[in-house]
């Protein structure tokens, strides 16, 4: 039996071992606590636990506090244990999520002399992070850095993924990590016995427990190369652009493709290759080789003016947003993506459909008259939109639709819709988007000579363009307004544009955006 160490605890006088646990609703914090109580009792330790559900039994974090005390034969005195966790007096802190770990650090429950900190590295996003118009997610690196700095030992890995892999729950993973952390004076067996005796999901819970135990043991033993920097999922928008080093253009699989790649290789600096390559794949998938050539043509013009600063940052950024903008999501594009062969298997994996299980896929569409007219030839489309009667006619086809893409009829209809891409270049929507794109590109090129920073900021505004229907109208209008401002105002500053861009992403009512605009 592997006995784990008790070096944190004084040997002369028995003291409590103090454990704090933060878990989100439905993550089995209660189950974890009950398991721990059973382990303690099996080892003749007294255990006192209490919990605080916050306001929320609903979606908030629940804090559990547990104290363990060794009983001794011939001593019937009962220890007095605390119902409150004390700052500076926590032996083990367990957290089911990395932001909650941050909260524990903030509240002083992790101290370098004492606390073994066990935390899953995954994120459960808060509502403010989720509802952001762009990327409002927290950067976990601060928490990881401080957790390493202020814990006696920081044991962290993605326990949610581990649990998910085995179709189990995160409490089993946390329990395994606790057993593997070598901080409780109980044998591993007494932990796993509790899971076995529970009689519920024993096999899956045990496999998660075992794997988690091993990972924790490796971290404790220092075998894990990531020990000081556990893998935490962080979104860093710049990574894609920054990883250019080491990127090697793949060879082409088609004749026309070879021509494009050759042009990319010869005309564009290496630092831009990876991104433009991705852009090419995208616009080619979206339309055809002519369109991809058009993409390179537009970029060449920007490149020609690019000062080359920061490894041709201006060209790279323009390449990214130009590719996204040129592949705007009109009805043919959405139809094309919905009937793609790989889509069904992606869905099956995501919803965990069993092998061979039949699934039905119902799409929810809500096109407006504008989106329908956008695929009509330009003159016809705008005429129909401006005429009250024809608009009403079109609106008969608009509105909420539920379509079963796995059914033949819908599949064929969507296929047909997808094939409308061949007439896309004549459509009202294409004309509309191209006008916007040219306005944006024109402004980038206009500004670059006099003020490259302003040009860069305008290029970055490409990020704003997204969404469908009203959202798309709002966001592309914002870019136009910024471009108009830049064009009208000779001494516009890069900071001002950056401020406008941030304001544009602050709310979906344009309030912040127009506040900044009217201020100046």
């Amino acid at each position, binding site marked *: 039996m592997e006995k784990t160490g008790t070096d944190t605890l004084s040997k002369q006088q028995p003291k409590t071992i103090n454990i704090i646990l933060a878990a989100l609703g439905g993550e089995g914090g209660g189950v974890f606590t009950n398991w721990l109580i059973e382990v303690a009792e099996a080892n003749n330790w007294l255990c006192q636990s209490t919990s605080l559900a916050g306001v929320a039994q609903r979606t908030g974090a629940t804090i559990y506090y547990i104290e363990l005390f060794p009983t001794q034969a011939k001593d019937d005195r009962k220890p007095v244990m605390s119902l409150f966790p004390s700052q500076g007096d926590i032996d083990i802190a367990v957290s089911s999520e990395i932001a909650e770990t941050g909260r524990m650090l903030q509240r002083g429950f992790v101290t370098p002399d004492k606390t073994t900190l066990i935390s899953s590295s995954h994120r459960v996003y808060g509502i*403010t992070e989720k509802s952001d118009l762009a990327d409002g997610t927290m950067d976990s690196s601060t928490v990881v850095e401080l957790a390493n700095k202020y814990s006696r030992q920081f044991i962290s890995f993605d326990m949610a993924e581990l649990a998910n892999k085995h179709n189990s729950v995160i409490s089993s993973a946390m329990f395994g990590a606790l057993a593997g952390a070598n901080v409780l004076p109980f044998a591993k067996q007494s932990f796993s016995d509790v899971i076995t005796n529970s009689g519920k999901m024993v096999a899956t819970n045990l496999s998660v427990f075992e794997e988690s135990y091993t990972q924790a043991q490796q971290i404790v033993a220092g075998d894990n190369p990531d020990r000081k920097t556990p893998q935490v999922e962080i979104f860093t928008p710049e990574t894609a652009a920054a990883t250019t080093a080491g990127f090697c253009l793949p060879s082409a699989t088609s004749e026309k493709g070879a021509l494009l790649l050759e042009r990319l290789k010869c005309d564009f600096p290496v630092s831009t290759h990876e991104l433009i390559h991705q852009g090419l794949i995208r616009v080619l998938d979206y339309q055809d080789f002519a369109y991809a050539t058009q993409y390179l043509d537009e970029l060449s013009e920007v490149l020609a003016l690019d000062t080359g600063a920061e490894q041709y940052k201006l060209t790279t950024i323009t390449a990214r947003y130009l590719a996204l903008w040129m592949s705007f999501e009109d009805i043919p594009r959405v139809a094309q993506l919905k009937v793609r062969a790989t889509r069904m298997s992606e*869905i099956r994996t995501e919803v965990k459909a069993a092998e061979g299980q039949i699934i039905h896929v119902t799409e929810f569409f809500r096109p407006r008259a504008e989106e329908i007219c956008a695929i009509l030839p330009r003159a016809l489309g705008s005429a129909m939109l401006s005429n009250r009667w024809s608009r009403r006619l079109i609106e008969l086809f608009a509105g909420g639709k539920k379509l079963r893409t796995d059914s033949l009829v819908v599949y064929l209809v969507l296929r047909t819709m997808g094939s409308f891409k061949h007439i896309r270049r004549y459509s009202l929507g294409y004309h509309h988007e191209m006008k916007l794109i040219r306005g944006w590109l024109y402004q980038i090129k206009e500004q670059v000579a006099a003020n490259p920073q302003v040009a860069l900021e305008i290029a970055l505004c490409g990020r704003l363009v997204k969404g469908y229907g009203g959202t798309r109208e709002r966001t592309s209008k914002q870019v136009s307004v910024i471009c108009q401002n830049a064009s009208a105002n000779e001494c516009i500053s890069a900071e001002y544009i950056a401020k406008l861009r941030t304001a544009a992403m602050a709310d979906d009512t344009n309030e912040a955006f127009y506040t900044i605009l009217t201020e100046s």
Partner: protein
Amino acid sequence: MAERSFKKEVLKLHAGDGDTFQGEGILAITKGLLQSGVAYVGGYQGSPISHLMDVLNDAQDILGDLGVHFEASGSEATAAAMLSASINYNLRGAVTWKSTVGTNVASDALSNIASCGVTGGAIVIVGEDYGEGSSIMQERTYAFAMKAQMWLVDPRPNLTSIVDMIEQSFQLSEASNTPVFYMMRVRGCHVTGEFVAKNNVAPEFGTKNSVTPNREAEKIILPPHVYQQEQDKIAKRWPAAVDFIIKNKLNEFFPGKHKDLGIITLGGNYNTLIRALQRQGLADSFGKTAIPIYVMNVAYPVVPEEMVEFCLGKKHVLLLEEGQPEYIEPAIHSILRKRDIQTKLYGKDLFPRAGEYTAQVTLTGLTRFLEVAGYSNDKHSLSVDDVKKLSSPLSDEEHERLLSVVPARPSGLCTGCPERPLFSAIKQVQKELGPFHISSDIGCHSFATLAPFNLGNTIMGYGLSLASSSSIRKALPHKAISIMGDGGFWHNGLSSGVVSAVFNKHDGILIIVNNGYSAATGGQDIPSMVEPNNLIATTMDAASSERDDSVSIELACRGAGVKWVKTVSTYSIEEMKQTLTDSLNTAEPGLKVIIAEGECMLNRQRRIKPLMKNAIAKGKRTVRARFYIDPKTCTGDHACIRISGCPSLTIKPSTDSLREDPVSYVDNSCVGCGVCGDNVHSAVLCPSFSKIDLIHNPSWLDLSASTVRRSVIGWFEKYDAWKRPGQIL
């Protein structure tokens, strides 16, 4: 059917003499009641005593066998009125609720019973929560105890003390003919531990043995008796209580070697105090203390004789009195002054006046006391500065950095909650006609006042939203809007709200959120139920109701005189928007009631999951639905999240290397309520949402249709794959 089942745990209540009972605080209280021969119990749920109601509910068989009567009372006032059984008869009774709000609701009956007094022991178990996560305003039950002359018991939070004090509270109540508050703090309610049990005692009278009707005119609240009752409180009941407390040693003295010092604490704070002493090296693990301690397990009344006995000969005494204003501190000052005892008393000068006495707060207060009492650093291990440093090892700069990244996690509605689509609908109507002033209420729907809905201006109390709109309604640019839950409606809203509004020709709108349960307190049953509907995407037929005695909210409103009542499923966002718009625009006079109906999803899932599992196992064709977001068409604007806030609707990094913003994502906890799809249609969202139906045990029709589809679509896909090489780089 409550959220947490205690069916298994309640079996422990059978424990007899000498058995070791292990479990949670609330379970120990229940055992304490049974050991004391309680004849009736009742109450109203609410944190932190919700689980006590759940335990009692689940223990009905055991209660019934003993002849104990249990009622899930309609409100705290109903529960308090139950205590009247103890006025004329030797019946022990206990009722419970969340304080201070529940005490406020119950106050009418409580004042009456406190005045006329009791024959059988009557106790009111109140849960108080002074913590930062508390959902109630932080007022002390103590004030009510003082003004009504009820005693307040505040036991040490270990199971043995908790159980003993239950029995002694009954005895105290009987010895002094006075009802007793028995106070539990939130952590004490949930604390686990063990105690040695005793046999349950069947009540002398109750369901199995009737009393002989007995009328005592002097116990009725009419002149001249009220005057006499007031005299009795002071002349007889109070001295009797003090006498009983002293004789039975309800308060505890713990000696210590530093005889010139002393600490007075309420029972509930004892463990935290001991921990602080342990950290200062002034107590051992078993609570043996170097500084004498006087534990007031009875917080009210204060016993002057004991206070004098403790303070006499001491130079410095510290009092731990959690909450404000302080009542015990001036009482002790008065006692000491009158006897001319010169002991210095410290309390709120060393401890914060407001807020919870957490471990850190207690340690800080104790350390300050040691310093003012002249104990230099070498006698205790931590100085005030040391303790201050303990609050966090992080530097200020590091704190700032953490604060700026760690996101808040406000409470929100659960996955698939039927209230979400209601608030989505209101938010959409507000966009067209708003902004709105909304009178909100207590319940899960209170969370609509938080992100992402941000709907609601005031909360005045349980079932009081409509009542609270009656003053503002004439000053609003739109018809007054009130939102109330079904729990609030039955608790208070029907009489204080609907009846009063009809009487006063209120022409506003009342939205009653009918989810079939008192959901926020843990899913307890209420008089009305909600018809299980099949609008929800998950097609498992909802089992019909288990109860046949349900009362209709609509009929109750009509009975109260409301003419305009519409019942709308919350999951039909379009219909809800239309109904709301109609109600705001109609010229029809009088109150407009919209019953927004949709079963609490937590309860629904609890019922449906086993049914579905069973159906699949039995080979029955079963469809399970969930939603899916196409990561390829999602552009990462998250408008869907801003009108929903469903926990299962979240985000994940985009797989598209060109897109930087995370895409929306439905995780596997989705229950397929269908709101995402409805929102796509009603709020004109993007084409990324799909409903995925997983078919278990497909029929031959499913199988053959699927085969045909797969082969034809498969052919097209092969054709594309053959054509494609010419189209890639």
